[in-house]
């Protein structure tokens, strides 16, 4: 270990944040770019499943809430791209890598939103799972990322509460609404468990990331925490639990539960999820169709700047 490396690791171990100008191992930088970039992409792609219901929101208030939420998410995308940019990669580069399939986004967004209760579930279950991850990441070693997480967590918690509220209306509504809620819960449950990644035993990037405090808790720890906080909420709603394997384990004081189908997880990651094609087609089309807009605005800004210089 070089002196630089030792100094770096000391800071990490003592919970001193790493800042953009500090020396850092190339792998640390690369891992962070991958992780923050993926997180940013997830916020952007995550607009699509919710956008799928914005035009069908059942009341003006629900529509306003949903619009405010996707607006927040796009905002999170901005913070996160900015955080990644402090590591020496541009937003446009990351977007290009996404569109070429060389960067990922959270697989949860490759599942469809099929009924209105899904929108509540996205707030409650999906954002809920994200928060479990993100709360831990507030203590991550990279300063800009940790600070972005603090800001994002606040808004996400608000979304999760709103989601639960919307979901409760469904769970306590008409027979059909209740059925929508149960259907949404059943479909979303395992994909949400997948959000924490494979079991620690099989996780590729785990150990080094933990040492660098890019990751602060293990996949399985976070998943258990999520399950433990979510089951009582499901019970409170009076819905059937989405997995017959769920049971309170007196001994270890946690809920037992079934693992998701990891074959499906890897299928989705490989591009075979229900919506992978649609999501990427939408994003790539948005980017390509918008090229003339970005070019136009840039050309105008340059003209303006040139006029200003000429006038000085």
């Amino acid at each position: 270990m070089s002196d630089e490396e030792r100094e770096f690791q000391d800071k990490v171990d003592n919970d001193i944040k790493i800042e953009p100008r500090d020396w850092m191992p190339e792998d640390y930088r690369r891992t962070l770019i991958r992780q923050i970039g993926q997180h940013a992409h997830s916020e952007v792609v995550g607009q699509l499943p919710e956008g799928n219901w914005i035009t069908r929101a059942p009341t003006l208030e629900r529509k306003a809430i949903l619009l405010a939420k996707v607006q927040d998410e796009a905002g999170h995308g901005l913070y996160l791209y900015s955080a990644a940019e402090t590591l020496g990669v541009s937003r446009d580069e990351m977007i290009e890598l996404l569109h070429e399939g060389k960067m990922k986004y959270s697989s949860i967004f490759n599942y469809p939103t099929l009924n209105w209760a899904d929108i509540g579930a996205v707030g409650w279950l999906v954002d809920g799972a994200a928060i479990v991850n993100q709360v831990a990441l507030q203590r991550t070693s990279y300063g800009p990322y940790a600070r972005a997480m603090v800001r994002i967590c606040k808004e996400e918690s608000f979304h999760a509460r709103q989601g639960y509220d919307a979901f409760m209306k469904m769970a306590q509504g008409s027979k059909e609404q209740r059925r929508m809620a149960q259907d949404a819960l059943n479909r979303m449950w395992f994909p949400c468990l997948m959000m924490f990644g494979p079991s620690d035993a099989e996780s590729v990037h785990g150990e080094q990331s933990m040492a660098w405090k890019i990751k602060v808790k293990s996949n399985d720890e976070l998943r258990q925490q999520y399950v433990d906080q979510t089951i009582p909420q499901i019970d409170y709603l009076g819905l059937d639990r989405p997995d017959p394997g769920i049971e309170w384990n007196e001994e270890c004081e946690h809920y037992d539960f079934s693992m998701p189908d990891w074959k499906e997880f890897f299928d989705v990651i490989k591009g075979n999820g229900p919506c992978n094609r649609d999501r990427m087609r939408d994003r790539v089309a948005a980017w390509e169709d918008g090229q003339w807009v970005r070019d136009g605005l840039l050309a105008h800004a340059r003209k303006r700047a040139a006029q200003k210089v000429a006038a000085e």
Partner: protein
Amino acid sequence: MAGKLDNPSLFEFLLRMGDNTLILGHRVSEWCGHAPVLEEDIALANTALDLIGQTQMWLGLAGEVEGKGRSADDLAFLRDAWDFRNALMLELPNGDFGQTLMRQFLFDAWQVVMLGRLMQSTDARVAAIAAKASKEAAYHVERSGHTVVGLGDGTEESHRRMQEALDYLYPYVGELFVSDAIDTAVAEAGIAPKLETLREEYDALVGRVLSAATLSIPGGSYVHQGGRDGRMHTEHLGHLLSSMQWLQRAYPGCEW
């Protein structure tokens, strides 16, 4: 003053205001996740959000004035196309980003002038809504005007697209300035300005921005009408409603 006006006319007037923002807000919300750049995703969601907020106020008051117990949601989700009173321009499909922003600007400019006058309304409820909405409209028109200038005076392609958008949309602008009996009655009661009197200020504002955008207002005097009085909407509105109203139609009487 307002007492001279019959409620049905005031109701119609409020629908015209509220349906404008409802339908445009819906169209803008269709962009979700598909804008040319992330900042525009945010801006479009924000615009849609403001417009839906204004809709809640206008249609809320409309329901009150009507006095039949209809809520803003009832009016938004349970009327069919013929009962909508939005200007035709606002129900047209989005087209490309340039067309969406051009329409936004042409409408924002009208809103900002109209709401400015409505703040003087003899009906305090109307004045209060206008006061709140006009702050948003001022922000919207600045933003959409800015974008129209940037794209009009951008590249050759962006200029061409913006001019095409203007040529397409301009024949729909006139509808916003033609008073019928309802508008006249509302104006005579001092609740709203006579629409024709907005034109000068509007033309000045729009002219300024379009000129900075190096765009030309198309010739031709034909004006598409039929939305504000519901006489003849476009075929697009029905399709918009079949999405927008789906849940309320499929599952009537639920709480959401």
